[in-house]
């Protein structure tokens, strides 16, 4: 390849990586509503005694996960602030079978359950507090 073509290839590679990064940043933390009506019960979750009276923020974590800490902080803060909302953090590093059961591909993934345990929304990556609050308000109002 001549030097001009090599330079062009390098520019294209950097541009590709930049676009991938921008797309990943835009999609991380986005709330996606679930409509398939999957129900999760407290007894399916190890160490969990009961779901929240209004809603449950069910976080899936692993040991190899930097944004899991941020997620823990955001969900914990929202659970403190909103009455009836419980935050459950499930580390599936030693229980990959649970990740398979609930179709979790990467961590952090957060499922928002309503008071009956129906999965109403799914968030991949660290959630944004404002978006999460808006979705919770909608779920709590509908209940």
């Amino acid at each position, binding site marked *: 390849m001549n030097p001009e073509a090599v330079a062009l290839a390098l520019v294209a590679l950097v541009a590709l990586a930049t676009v991938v990064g921008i797309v990943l940043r835009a999609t991380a933390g986005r709330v996606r509503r679930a409509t398939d009506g999957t129900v999760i019960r407290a007894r399916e979750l190890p160490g969990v005694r009961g779901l929240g009276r209004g809603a449950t923020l069910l976080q899936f974590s692993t040991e190899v996960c930097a944004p899991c800490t941020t997620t823990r902080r955001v969900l914990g803060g929202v659970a403190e602030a909103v009455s009836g909302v419980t935050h459950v953090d499930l580390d599936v590093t030693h229980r*990959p079978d649970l990740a398979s059961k609930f179709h979790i591909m990467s961590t952090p993934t957060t499922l928002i359950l309503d008071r009956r345990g129906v999965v109403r929304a799914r968030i991949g990556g660290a959630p944004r507090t404002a978006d999460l609050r808006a979705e919770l308000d909608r779920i709590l109002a509908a209940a």
Partner: protein
Amino acid sequence: MSTETQKSAHALAAQPGQKGIDPRSPRFGAGITAVLLLVVVALGLSVPIGATVGQRVLEPGFILFALITLLFAWGAFAGVQRHPYGRIFRALIRPRLAPPTDLEDPIPPTFAQGVGFVITLVGVALHLIGVPYALVIAAGAAFVAAFLNSVFAYCLGCQIYLVLLRLGLLRRSSVAAG
């Protein structure tokens, strides 16, 4: 209401003596790696692949790529804290920066070094047996991961961790020990 956590992590700011690493350190290292990988891609595209193993081993792009592979192995097996780029960061960069607001667990970047090691090792092997553009493709893929890590603080390698666990391809003890 309340938070039920299996592992509590309420520390918002880095405290002296707290466990963890400055998250800017692996990002600094990934930046160096990304630049070096870009050089490998340029050399791989400029120089046609050698006809014999001896020629292929002596290609400058390959030598640099083999060095990057060894550095990934260093990070993966000794842990990111002991990586040479981490030492450079602590000696030259960190004294010029404000203290970090957060400390990061070293396990995710160590695992990512392992993913980088596997990808680059495959590139090394394929190049040595004479597969054209194996070096360029492996270096390009590793570049994207290193670039995302450095510029966007996004750990691409960490994303496949749970998938590998679910497939039973990973012994979690090997990572937890890192």
